[in-house]
């Protein structure tokens, strides 16, 4: 329609490999002093072929690209299980204080008492909120927290002189749970949920044996329900000599309302990038500290903080009762995220943390109540926690799939909910509003979903199957992408260009 292909403020942007030039740079540097090279025969002889852009070109390139993204700062981001809440800018500012951002993990510990104090303070908040004995801060994200917790469990079992080879995982679990168990060589036994979306103690008991090392249970679970028999399950697990690994991705529902430690959890990772608002950044970084019960605490990996505030960095430097299972990452974990998470905690305080959980749960139930008549709630009988699960039944016969429905939401200005997860209901739509939405925002979202549900029912299926029509791209051909994957840019051969 336009000559340029641009549409007003929506401006097309090529790849840097198409615009940059290897002799251009956006970084001026002082002259290089003449020295005798010590690179020996390994000095680079091959070109890198990396294009450069000047600063103005760089700004434009990335600003234009950014405008093709949705973001929390643009609107509700109701991805169930992801807890896309507001990211306070104070936290960004604090993380950039030179005393946090410009310190090296290996400078003498005597020169970073503030950093160690911050880690100790964060540990205090995490253990107090969860009612647990200890915390290993270093895991880099939730999945690594799972690894840490499961390794501590394995070490504890080994310390008892046993070996156990099975881990129980409910079917509704997040993919990282079975992946983690499998990575550690465990056999994964799936536990079926009941009709109402929760796990029964009975089913767990039936699966238990002295070969079971642990259960990995998400609570609230990924259907957005609090497991009513969690304490009984914990008791059964413990009775069988196994451990209770809690997936804490959904901790945002219950902070200040109940403590996982009281429910019998032995280890639980906490995604600081979910419950504690460190930004997702288009996929990361996160941080996944794992809290540990008294029984597992001795096995925490290095580095760990002693009660006296000292940091133990090496296994050979351990004292009595300190039997770390190893090290999960170089250095001390995600300090930048610790600062942000602690800023969040200090800002909220005990009262604000509870309010956050309550508002998150309230908002999810409000959505549930407001849409129950036009969409189908997967498990209507129990209160939802911080997220509510719909399934595809309301779309039956409309020719509209869950995917289509989600894509139509994009045109309406919303990011879709999590789709097709958990796997336990067909065409799942998991909606997590978080506590960050105003009532006006929730009402707008609800009204749009009602309109869409009605439109689907009324046969306006093109609105869905053709969606999105108003986004920076229409649907992408993902199978083509996977069949002949193009993963890096390849400069077109000059003769190919000429031939065109």
């Amino acid at each position: 329609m336009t000559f340029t292909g641009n549409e007003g403020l929506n401006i097309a942007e090529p790849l840097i490999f198409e615009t940059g030039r290897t002799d251009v740079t956006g970084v001026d540097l002082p002259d290089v002093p003449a020295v005798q090279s010590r690179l020996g025969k390994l000095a680079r002889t091959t070109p890198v072929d990396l294009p450069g852009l000047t600063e103005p070109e760089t700004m434009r390139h990335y600003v234009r690209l950014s405008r093709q993204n949705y973001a929390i700062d643009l609107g509700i981001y109701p991805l169930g299980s992801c807890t896309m809440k507001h990211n306070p800018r104070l936290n960004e500012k604090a993380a950039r204080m030179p005393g946090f951002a410009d310190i090296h993990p290996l400078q003498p510990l005597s020169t970073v008492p503030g950093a160690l104090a911050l880690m100790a303070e964060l540990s205090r908040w995490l253990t107090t909120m969860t009612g647990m004995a200890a915390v290993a801060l270093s895991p880099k994200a939730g999945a690594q927290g799972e690894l840490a917790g499961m390794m501590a469990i394995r070490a504890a079992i080994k310390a008892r002189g046993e070996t156990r080879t099975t881990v129980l995982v409910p079917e509704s679990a997040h993919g990282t749970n079975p992946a983690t168990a499998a990575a550690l060589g465990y056999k994964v036994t799936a536990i079926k949920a009941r009709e109402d979306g929760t796990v029964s103690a009975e089913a767990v008991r039936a699966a238990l044996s002295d070969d079971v090392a642990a259960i990995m249970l998400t609570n609230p679970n990924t259907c957005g329900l609090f497991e009513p028999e969690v304490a009984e399950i914990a008791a059964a697990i413990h009775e069988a000599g196994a451990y209770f690994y809690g997936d804490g991705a959904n901790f945002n529902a219950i902070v200040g309302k109940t403590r996982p430690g009281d429910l019998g959890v032995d280890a639980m990772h906490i995604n600081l990038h979910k419950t504690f608002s460190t930004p997702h950044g288009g996929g990361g970084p996160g941080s996944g500290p794992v809290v540990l019960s008294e029984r597992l605490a001795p096995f925490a990996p290095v580095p760990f903080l002693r009660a006296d505030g000292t940091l133990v960095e090496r296994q050979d430097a351990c004292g009595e009762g300190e039997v770390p299972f190893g090290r999960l990452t170089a250095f001390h974990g995600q300090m930048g995220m610790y600062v942000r998470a602690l800023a969040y905690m200090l800002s909220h305080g005990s009262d604000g943390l509870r309010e956050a959980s309550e508002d998150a749960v309230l908002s999810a139930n409000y959505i549930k109540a407001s849409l129950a008549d036009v969409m189908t709630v997967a498990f209507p009988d129990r209160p939802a926690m911080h997220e509510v699960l719909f399934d595809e039944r309301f779309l039956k016969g409309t020719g509209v799939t869950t995917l289509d429905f989600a894509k139509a939401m994009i045109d309406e200005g919303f990011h879709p909910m999590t789709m097709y997860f958990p796997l336990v209901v067909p065409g799942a739509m998991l909606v997590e509003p978080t506590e960050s939405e105003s009532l006006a925002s929730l009402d707008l979202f609800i009204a749009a979903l009602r309109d869409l549900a009605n439109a689907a029912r009324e046969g306006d299926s093109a609105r869905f199957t053709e969606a999105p029509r108003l986004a920076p791209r229409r649907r992408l051909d993902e199978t083509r992408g996977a069949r002949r994957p193009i993963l890096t840019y390849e400069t077109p051969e000059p003769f190919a260009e000429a031939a065109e």
Partner: protein
Amino acid sequence: MRYHPLTSDDRALMLSRIGVTSVDDLFVDVPAEHRLDGLLPLPKGASEMGVERTLAAMAAQNRAAGEGPFFVGAGAYRHHIPASVDHLIQRSEFLTSYTPYQAEISQGTLQVLFEFQTQVARLTGMEVANASMYDGSTGAAEAVMMAARITRRKKVLLAGGLHPQYRDVIDTIATGLEVEALPTDPTGTEDLRSAITDDLACIVIQTPSFYGHLIDLKPIAEAAHAAGVLVVSVFTEAVALGAIEPPGALGADIVVGEGQSIGNALNFGGPYVGLFAAKKAHVRQMPGRLAGETVDADGRRGFALTLSTREQHIRRDKATSNICTNSGLCALAFTIHMSLLGEAGLQKLAHLNHAMAVQTADALAAVPGVSVLNDTFFNEFTIRVPGNAAAIIEKLAREGVLGGVPASRLDPAAPDDLIIVAATEMTSEADIARYAAILGDVL
């Protein structure tokens, strides 16, 4: 609470729509005896002003790198980050977006990842790269497991020049495998060729090594490949690749490294960004996300996550890795900084780093009693000091000089008189002179 938009009126209205009288009615599934009555025993919420003050006071207790001469490296490096990088990564649309599963409204992130993958592949001299790992050390562990999957072998050999913490991480994470580590190698003289046996899945070699030596992978790779063994090449200083031959050109099969040096601050160790590159033939065994080029329904070029059948959210217990959240924003910072540098900037930056390190090495070698162990190095080298390295580092710190890392801090098996010293473009001649002078004083 300033972050919570609901008012009490809103809450009352919502409760009535839901049909309950209090929010606690929504928590009935929590076992009654485990419901918390009052508040947690933690301080109440604080103002932004108050929180800022508290955190600023903690930060002020730390000696920031910028406060004086600084020569600490050993896996993380202090480089200058252009202001535009930090500005851009804070754009709401980058900072506050999720993993780009909805490609139609995530083209910004996806195109960036495609650019990142291409940059990493070109930098390392490899064919493909993924969309980032947590950091270099965990990337190294993933590489080892990938090599084991490809070769269906279980034995892994770690060279003596590998960062001790990387070694520990591989040892911890690669649980099903037999990991053998060669003795630590401060002089860079170990004979890796003859350590290769044909039951190895891979050999893991860091270059520049932990002690700073440049290792020629080529002869080792030849020997390894002859035995069906993969070469996993590791680096901790991405800037080095601007000045030295890329591992891909020397025969590496998998290249992993720490990308912090480009675009990312020291942050006391994290978040960083793991770079992970490999050969096309092995792409289906790679861990982590991949962005790929494709077209949309109108035929327009676009990008989407691809080959997800390797990943945990699709493949669950059969996944190539359990990684989910990765280092997206750090990868963005890397990409932006690398786009600013370009080949010309990167090469100049690398040579400036090298020059400052050479000047530092020469200045320290001139301090009586001090010797430099390296024939070759990039921006980091090892000195032997007459005395306990850790004690000397503490003394230097008291004089305002952060002089490097005692090798024995990370590796109990390392001699206790070695200091690993790094210089970068941030190192000034005055810093070098001061270091040499104070080192002379404290010895």
